[in-house]
């Protein structure tokens, strides 16, 4: 198979601006939208970052947990929770028997799982996904979420490793709260075909709050 | 100023008599007992007397007259249905309505405003044409119109609906009207009362006495009443009443909500309905915008209001009329709609002899008030349903002969 660069699911929302682009895991991705000062200000106030380019692997079925363990993955013990592997990869347990794994920018776990043998077990289905994955940061992030989502997503309500599947701006989405570079951030995944809508919606509110879009390099050293 | 108001100005005592007698205790038996003192039940009592000379009739109302869906609907009257049997039926209703203020000598403010069912999609346009063609066939004035004609009737409407759902056209139904809903109930109550029917408010039916498959009487909060004929005309309470006679029906209850704004000078002359935006709106003679939406999505037997309803409705109202941002909603309320799978009523006889059903009115009961009263009176008087309501019989479900009004009624109050 030849290597081609894939567009991010939010590509349509970027069509009228020319941010600084880069390539990660074969996906065109925005590295930054503005200068460092603006990026840093937005990240700290209310930053919306597209991280759809991170590698992902999803699997479901009654044997999924067992199979992941066979592949040396430490799985979150309860339904609707998540954890972080030593490699930094996130393992999200969606309900009971479905898992979504997401690598750090240069992680290799998903690639390995993709080719790992699945024949040994029955009741195991690889799930093809095309997520838009967003990273929301800054002091005003809860203001943004309180306008888009009815749930209490504050740290004290969510606890350490809760994962919620809920509606955000009317779209089904998965949300977790994590710490990235010692800053609390919210992560959100939803179907990529809603990507442009979700991006535009969040950006509009972020800008109203004085924040804005930030590129991948605001959060990751690449 | 009409002369008839002068008598109020110059009389010492208030010259108007009671609309309906204040009766203490029901008699031991009646020829017919009507459960439900809403528009339908009262109209049936009225026509039993007027058309069939049956006056030994009791109307039993659990609360107060017209306090159910009669007083909770958004008062739209129209006949632009989809099936010929539906159009015929509602057209007959419209025709009675047009002369009803005179007949009942009560101004029902029957106000002919013209009714637009807006189409935002090609498929909605197709349904509009379907309805227009069937309406025309039956002799009802409905036609498909383009955006120009809508704009002419309602220049304030944003035809693009804020870009979210551009209006492609509409079904225009000239006879579409609004009326004072309470007045309809009061007028029929007065008419029935004056002909001898007895109306009891605050009187709840607690059971129906069925012996060997035949109705023998009703148990009420004011004692037992013997009767061979019972009409159930209770809208959202239908399943409770049919349960009393062990009758299964397809009816399920969903709340239907509505709201009104503060009064403002009338500017909206037509009745507008948008299926895609789930809105219908008219402006009352008091100057309030009266607005409603589609049914609540799940079964509840109460008239509680919900915030999601009014949020959704106002959002769509702004799509149509962006300038209403600062106009205020005064009040919201709900009714309980008795829904059938084919969005058509259930009328006529039932397997229980002497138990007649006037139900399944969902969201379209108000507009049918006169004709349902008339046809149910005929059914009761003759113990045979007239041809006009044959398609609405309960047995149509067993026969897999559903009526198919769904396309016209979903948000078409």
């Amino acid at each position: 198979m030849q290597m081609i660069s894939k567009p991010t699911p939010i590509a349509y929302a970027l069509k009228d601006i020319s941010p600084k682009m880069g390539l990660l895991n074969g996906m065109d991705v925005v590295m930054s939208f503005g200068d460092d000062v603006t990026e840093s200000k937005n990240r700290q106030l209310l930053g919306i970052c597209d991280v759809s380019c991170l590698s992902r692997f999803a699997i479901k079925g009654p044997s999924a947990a067992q199979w992941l363990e066979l592949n040396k993955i430490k799985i979150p013990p309860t339904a609707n929770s998540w954890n972080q592997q030593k490699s930094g990869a996130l393992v999200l347990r969606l309900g009971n028997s479905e898992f979504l794994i997401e690598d750090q920018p240069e992680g290799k776990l998903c690639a390995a799982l993709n080719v790992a043998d699945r024949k040994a077990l029955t009741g195991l289905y690889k799930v093809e996904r095309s997520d838009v994955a967003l990273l929301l940061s800054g002091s005003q992030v809860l203001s943004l979420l309180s306008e888009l989502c009815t749930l209490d997503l504050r740290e004290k309500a969510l606890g350490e490793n809760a994962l919620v599947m809920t509606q955000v701006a009317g779209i089904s989405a998965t949300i977790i709260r994590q710490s990235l570079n010692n800053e609390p951030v919210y992560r959100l995944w939803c179907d990529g075909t809603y990507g442009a809508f979700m991006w535009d919606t969040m950006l509009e509110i972020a800008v109203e709050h004085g924040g804005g879009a930030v590129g991948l390099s605001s959060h990751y050293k690449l | 100023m009409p002369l008839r108001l002068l008598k109020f100005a110059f009389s010492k005592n208030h010259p108007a008599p009671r609309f309906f007698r204040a009766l203490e205790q029901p008699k031991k038996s009646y020829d017919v007992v009507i459960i439900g003192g809403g528009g339908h039940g009262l109209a049936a009592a009225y026509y039993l007397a007027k058309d069939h000379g049956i006056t030994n009739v009791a109307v039993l109302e659990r609360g107060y007259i017209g306090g159910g869906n009669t007083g909770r609907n958004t008062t739209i009257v129209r006949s632009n249905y989809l099936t010929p049997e539906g159009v015929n039926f509602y057209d007959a209703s419209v025709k009675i309505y047009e002369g009803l203020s005179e007949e009942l000598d009560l101004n029902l403010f029957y106000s002919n405003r013209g009714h637009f069912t807006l189409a935002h999609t090609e498929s909605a346009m197709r349904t509009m044409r379907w309805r227009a063609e069937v309406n025309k066939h039956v002799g009802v004035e409905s036609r498909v119109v383009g955006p120009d004609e809508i704009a002419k009737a309602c220049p304030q409407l944003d035809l693009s609906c804020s870009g979210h759902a551009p209006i492609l056209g509409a079904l225009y139904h000239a006879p579409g009207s609004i009326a004072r809903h309470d007045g309809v109930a009061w007028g029929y109550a007065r008419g029935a009362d004056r002909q001898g029917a007895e109306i009891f408010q605050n009187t709840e039916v607690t059971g129906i006495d069925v012996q060997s498959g035949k109705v023998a009487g009703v148990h009420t909060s004011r004692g037992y009443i013997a009767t061979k004929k019972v009409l159930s005309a209770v809208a959202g309470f239908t399943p409770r009443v049919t349960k009393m006679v062990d009758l299964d029906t397809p009816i399920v209850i969903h709340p239907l909500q509505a709201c009104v704004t503060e009064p403002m000078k009338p500017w909206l002359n037509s009745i507008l309905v948008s299926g895609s935006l789930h809105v219908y709106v008219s402006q009352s003679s008091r100057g309030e915008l009266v607005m409603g939406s589609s049914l609540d999505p799940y079964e509840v037997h109460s008239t509680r209001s919900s915030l999601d309803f009014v949020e959704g409705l106002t959002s769509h109202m702004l799509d149509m009329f962006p300038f209403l941002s600062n106009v205020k909603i005064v009040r919201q309320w709900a009714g309980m709609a008795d829904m059938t799978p084919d969005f058509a009523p259930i009328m006529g006889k039932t397997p229980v002899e002497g138990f007649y059903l006037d139900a399944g009115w969902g969201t379209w009961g108000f507009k049918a008030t006169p004709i349902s009263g008339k046809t149910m009176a005929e059914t009761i008087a003759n113990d045979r349903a007239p041809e006009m309501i044959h398609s609405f019989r309960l047995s149509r479900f067993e026969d897999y002969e559903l009526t198919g009004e769904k396309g016209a009624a979903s948000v078409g109050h």
Partner: protein
Amino acid sequence: MKLLHCPMNGTRPISEFVFGGEFRDMPDPEASTDKEWAAYVHNRNGAPGLKKEWWYHGPSGTWFIAERNTLTEEVLRTYLFGQETAA
């Protein structure tokens, strides 16, 4: 807005759910008469009271059963289909 407890995902506003109607056992299609089958297909227990109902949590794709009083809107309990005893 009403809250409903999804047995998998916890308490959520009702806007995240789809109402699936009353839970009803299907009669044996072979053994039932046409009339019985037509009644099963069309008729409903429309009277208010405690009912077992199907509900679907959209964001997670979870069907479950809720025991709900349709008069008071009170939800007694919810559980995954077939896991009634565990609830």
